[in-house]
C-alpha cells in the first residue's frame, strides 16, 4: 500500500500522447471463440447464413468484442495477450493494479473480416482515496479503433485503471 503517490511532470507529460498503433483482427474464428467464451447462444455469432439473414455483412462482433490483438511472443504480454508497447502505461512504480471499468462507444457495426488499427492515449491521471486500498492512482485511457480498409473509426473504448 503506497504512503504517498505523486503524479510527476514526467507522468503528466504522457497525457494526450498517442501510443503506437496495434492491429486487432476480427475473424470468423475469433468471433466464434469470443461468443463461445461468453456463452452466447445466438446463432448469428456462429453461423454465417444466420448472420446474413439478420442483416449483417458477416458474423457480427459480440457486444464488447473489438477484435483480438495480434500476438507476437516478444511484443505481446503472455498473460493478457495485449501488445506491450501499445498498451497505455506510465512509470508509477506501484505494485498492484485493478481494472476500474470499461466504456465502449460504437460508430459502426464490426463484423468478421474487419481488421482494425487501435491507437491508445492516456486522457487523465488523478489521485483518489479508497477506504480499503488507501491512496490510489487512477488512470483513464481512450483507444480508437479504425478499419484498415476504409479508414473509418468504428469504436472508441475508454478504460479506467487503478494502481495502488
Amino acid at each position, binding site marked *: 500500500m503506497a504512503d504517498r503517490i505523486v503524479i510527476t511532470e514526467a507522468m503528466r507529460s504522457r497525457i494526450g500522447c498517442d501510443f503506437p498503433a496495434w492491429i486487432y483482427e476480427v475473424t470468423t474464428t475469433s468471433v466464434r471463440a*469470443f461468443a463461445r*467464451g*461468453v*456463452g*452466447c447462444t445466438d446463432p448469428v455469432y456462429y453461423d454465417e447464413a444466420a448472420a446474413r439473414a439478420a442483416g449483417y455483412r458477416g458474423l457480427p462482433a459480440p457486444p464488447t468484442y473489438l477484435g483480438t490483438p495480434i500476438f507476437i511472443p516478444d511484443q505481446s504480454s503472455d498473460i493478457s495477450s495485449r501488445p506491450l508497447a501499445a498498451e497505455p502505461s506510465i512509470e508509477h512504480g506501484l505494485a498492484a493494479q*485493478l*481494472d*476500474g471499468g470499461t466504456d465502449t462507444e*460504437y460508430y459502426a457495426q464490426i463484423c468478421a473480416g474487419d481488421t482494425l488499427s487501435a491507437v491508445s492515449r492516456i486522457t487523465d491521471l488523478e489521485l483518489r482515496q479508497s477506504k480499503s486500498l488507501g491512496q490510489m492512482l487512477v488512470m483513464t485511457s481512450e483507444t480508437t479503433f479504425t478499419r484498415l480498409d476504409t479508414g473509418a473509426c468504428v469504436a472508441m473504448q475508454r478504460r479506467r485503471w487503478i494502481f495502488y
Partner: protein
Amino acid sequence: MAVTWDSFAVGDTLPERVKTPGIAELVKFAAGSGDFNPLHYDYGSMQAKKLGSIIVHGRYKYASLGQLVCEWLGHSGRISRISCEYRGMDLPDRPLICRGHVVRKWEQDGAKLAELALWIENADGAITTPGSAIVAFD
C-alpha cells in the same frame, strides 16, 4: 422475443439472464478473450491465494451485460454505447444475475434511442458490476 421501438416503455425490465460460470467457462473465456491471468483459473496461483479464490474475469461480466442487452434488443437495433464498473469480485460457481431496465426513451436527429441501467448482482443481492447502455433502433 426481441423488442421493437413501439413495444417497450420507460421502466420496463429486461428479461434477466443468470450465468453461473465454473472453471470450464472461465477457461473458455480466457481462450476467447486472451486474458490468461491465472487469477481466473488456477487456485494455486499467487494471485488466487492472495484473494482466497479464483475470480470471474471483469470482462466476462462486461460481455454478459452486453449479452443481456442484445437478447432484449434483437437485431433490428444496435448498441451505441455500453459501460460498466468492476466494483465487486465475483466467485465461480455462483449465480451472476444480469439485470436491466429502461431509464429513458427519446428521438434525436432522426435516431430512436433508449438508455438502459444494467447491473450484475450476486446471490446475496449485492451489485458487483453496475453499468449502462445506449441502444439505437433502426
